[in-house]
């Protein structure tokens, strides 16, 4: 019998041991392939180089801060970050990462062939600088000979993936080199289940940004050899965008970008979207003629130059604080407008960053160069904050009212959101304590009534055995009352416990993020700043 029990127990124990979180893979699906015209070039994707610091490779855990012997017991305090290690990834994770970068290059559809080794027109090198998830944890335990008391505080895990991309041509010349960074916040459940999947999600963000970067480099390199005058037409034909262009505005917390595709020259808004993977160009709330497309691929600088020259005939655009991007202020009044007599002369001695004329005369009619406003719009008043820069130039040309059904936001935007991170407010602690007290009181009541009911039942059984039917009836009449009281108090206990956990004193309460934080306990940066918090207490 014992042998049979042991035989049953062993598989169960093995199953429990095997139920730990499986290691994460690094096979990233690059997403929808781009729809670009192939360049006919070949690329060699070199294996990624691991440049992570040692704690990220071998992992790290909390450190013991104190061990105190107090009388008959020991107090132990530990705190620190728990960091993922190589055991959180599958053994061939690096090969999978290499394959993911190869897929990434494939999905740009810019190359005729993507090779793993050999020679090609380009070589793509990647270096992984960070790939980890970390979770801060604190623990205090008092171990006595008679028992133990322990308390722990866990913070929500967060992941970072930082990858350096470098593209070289066949002669070894660096076409471009840039670091992309992907961050990912965990969920409450991942505190206990494990955080091994988080680095993969962060890496996915980084690789998708890297894909746009590679496409941008190729576009810049290929178009550099084409005469500037034909760039805009070439680009339009290649991408079949028609006569439309993209404007964008960065969200208040810089976590994403709003996009609007504008028809030229009517100014009608064709489509609006939002994205969190596009480059962050411009201050929050400022509408900018996007120097990239919906995929995040940067338009070659000569193409953007030609595009903005074309747009300046129909729309009000100004170069304000971005050297390679124009602010968008809507349509010109009463278009077509004859070109101004002469663009404002930039002040001397500072050399104006006006886009110079292309070497060959442009094929379309002579275009008005984008208006360069040399005024002080890019300079803040002394001692001021960021808000004053949100105003448009001094006398913006009046724009036609937007077409029906178009969002009113495509106009010089108002002042950006307050960028100051919220200060600490711990007033929620009172509510947190109130729910704790409610939980304790209701729980104690539920336990008491339950115990009373059980005692009544026992007494009723005894009374029945003694044929004391009067007492039996009296006790039985109390039973439903006790049952419903116990159930009600139990429900109150459960609800207040949930609310106590959900409104933990360490959970942020600042501003508009409050509503979205309560149910999910995840990071939801509000317009008051992107500061989130990541704590959860057991």
């Amino acid at each position, binding site marked *: 019998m014992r042998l049979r029990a042991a035989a049953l127990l062993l598989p169960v124990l093995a199953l429990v041991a095997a139920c730990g979180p499986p290691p994460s893979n690094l096979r990233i699906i690059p997403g929808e392939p781009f729809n670009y015209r192939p360049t006919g070039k070949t690329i060699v994707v070199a294996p990624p180089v691991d440049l992570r610091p040692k704690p990220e490779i071998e992992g790290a855990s909390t450190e013991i801060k104190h061990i105190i012997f107090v009388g008959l017991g020991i107090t132990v305090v530990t705190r*620190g970050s728990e960091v993922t290690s190589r055991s959180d990834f599958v053994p061939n994770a690096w090969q999978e990462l290499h394959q993911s970068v190869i897929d990434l290059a494939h999905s740009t559809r810019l190359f005729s062939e993507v090779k793993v080794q050999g020679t090609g027109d380009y070589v793509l090198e990647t270096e992984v600088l960070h790939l980890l998830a970390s979770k801060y944890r604190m623990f*205090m335990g008092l171990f006595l000979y008679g028992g133990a008391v322990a308390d722990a505080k866990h*913070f929500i895990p967060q992941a970072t993936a930082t990858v*350096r991309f470098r593209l070289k041509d066949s002669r070894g010349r660096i076409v471009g080199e840039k670091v992309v960074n992907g961050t990912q916040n965990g969920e409450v459940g991942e505190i206990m289940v494990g955080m091994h999947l988080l680095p993969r999600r962060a890496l996915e963000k980084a690789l998708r940004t890297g894909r746009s970067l590679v496409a941008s480099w190729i576009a810049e390199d290929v178009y550099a050899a084409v005469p500037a005058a034909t760039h805009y037409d070439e680009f339009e034909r290649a991408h079949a965008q028609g006569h439309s262009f993209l404007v964008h505005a960065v969200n208040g917390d810089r976590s994403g970008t709003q996009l609007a595709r504008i028809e030229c020259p009517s100014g009608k808004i064709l489509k609006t979207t939002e994205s969190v993977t596009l480059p962050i160009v411009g201050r929050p709330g400022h509408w900018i003629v996007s120097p990239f497309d919906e995929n995040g691929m940067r338009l070659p600088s000569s193409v953007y130059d030609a595009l903005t020259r074309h747009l300046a005939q129909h729309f009000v655009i100004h170069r304000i604080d971005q050297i*390679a991007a124009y602010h968008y202020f809507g349509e010109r009044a009463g278009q077509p407008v004859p070109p101004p007599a002469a663009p404002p002369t930039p002040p001397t001695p*500072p*050399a104006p960053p006006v886009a110079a004329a292309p070497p060959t005369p442009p094929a379309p009619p002579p275009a008005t160069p984008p208006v360069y406003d040399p005024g002080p719009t890019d300079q803040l008043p002394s001692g001021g904050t960021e808000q004053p820069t949100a105003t448009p130039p001094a006398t913006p040309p009046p724009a036609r009212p937007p077409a029906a059904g178009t969002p009113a936001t495509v106009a010089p935007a108002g002042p950006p959101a307050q960028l100051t991170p919220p200060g600490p407010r711990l007033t929620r602690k009172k509510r947190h304590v109130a729910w704790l007290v409610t939980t304790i009181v209701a729980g104690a009541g539920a336990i008491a009534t339950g115990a009373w009911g059980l005692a009544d039942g026992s007494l009723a059984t005894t009374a029945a055995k003694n044929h004391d039917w009067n007492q039996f009836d009296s006790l039985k009449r109390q039973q439903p009352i006790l049952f419903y009281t116990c159930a009600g108090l139990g429900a109150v206990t459960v609800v207040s416990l949930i609310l106590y956990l959900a409104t933990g004193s360490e959970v942020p309460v600042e501003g508009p993020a409050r509503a979205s934080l309560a149910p999910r306990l995840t990071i939801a940066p509000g317009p008051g700043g992107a500061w989130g918090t990541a*704590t959860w207490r057991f």
Partner: protein
Amino acid sequence: MTRLRIAIGAVGLALLFACTTPARPYGQPEYDLQKIAEYRNAPTRAPQTPNVLVLGALDDLTVSPVGGLYNEESFEYGPLLRTYWYPNLAPKVLDCVHTAFNRRGVRTFKDYLDLGGPVPFPQPTYPPGLLLLRGSIDTFGFSRHVQEFDVLIGRLTLRLVDGSSGRVLWQGQKEIAFRAPMSSYDPFVMFGDALAAALLDDAAFAAALAGGAR
């Protein structure tokens, strides 16, 4: 035996008070509060230059979370109360540096789409005289303290590049660390101001900015 326990307990208590330095979350810079100076708005002036400064790619090498809320005076078993993260840290820092440079008289533009090419501003698309400031944020920490002050620490590796040729005119590391009273004023603005002041105080940087590619 009792004496031994008392001795061990005393050692434990000594350890308790010796270990007052809080362990920051992984990736955040450690600091000693006593050694962090108060923020001071230095009256640095920019050199007269015909060149235009452009803020380019600032590679973010930080590890999330980059901030935390601490209570240094009263805590149960650790001073950390919350952790903070910040999406797209580099543009936020650069916006403030841009503001600070302009305020100090350096004509500054931004190029957040800098692709890291060897020649950032080829002619004739761009005029000559553009100097690009590139680099990386190696570490960054924004600690708030319930005692109503903030501590900002950042270590950056920067280089000034001639836009037309790609030649590196200056390169160096800058470490910014200060504490400031917690207020409605954005500490990032102070950070940008401190970084701009540190760069302009660097004689080699100022000379490179003034001289350009000559």
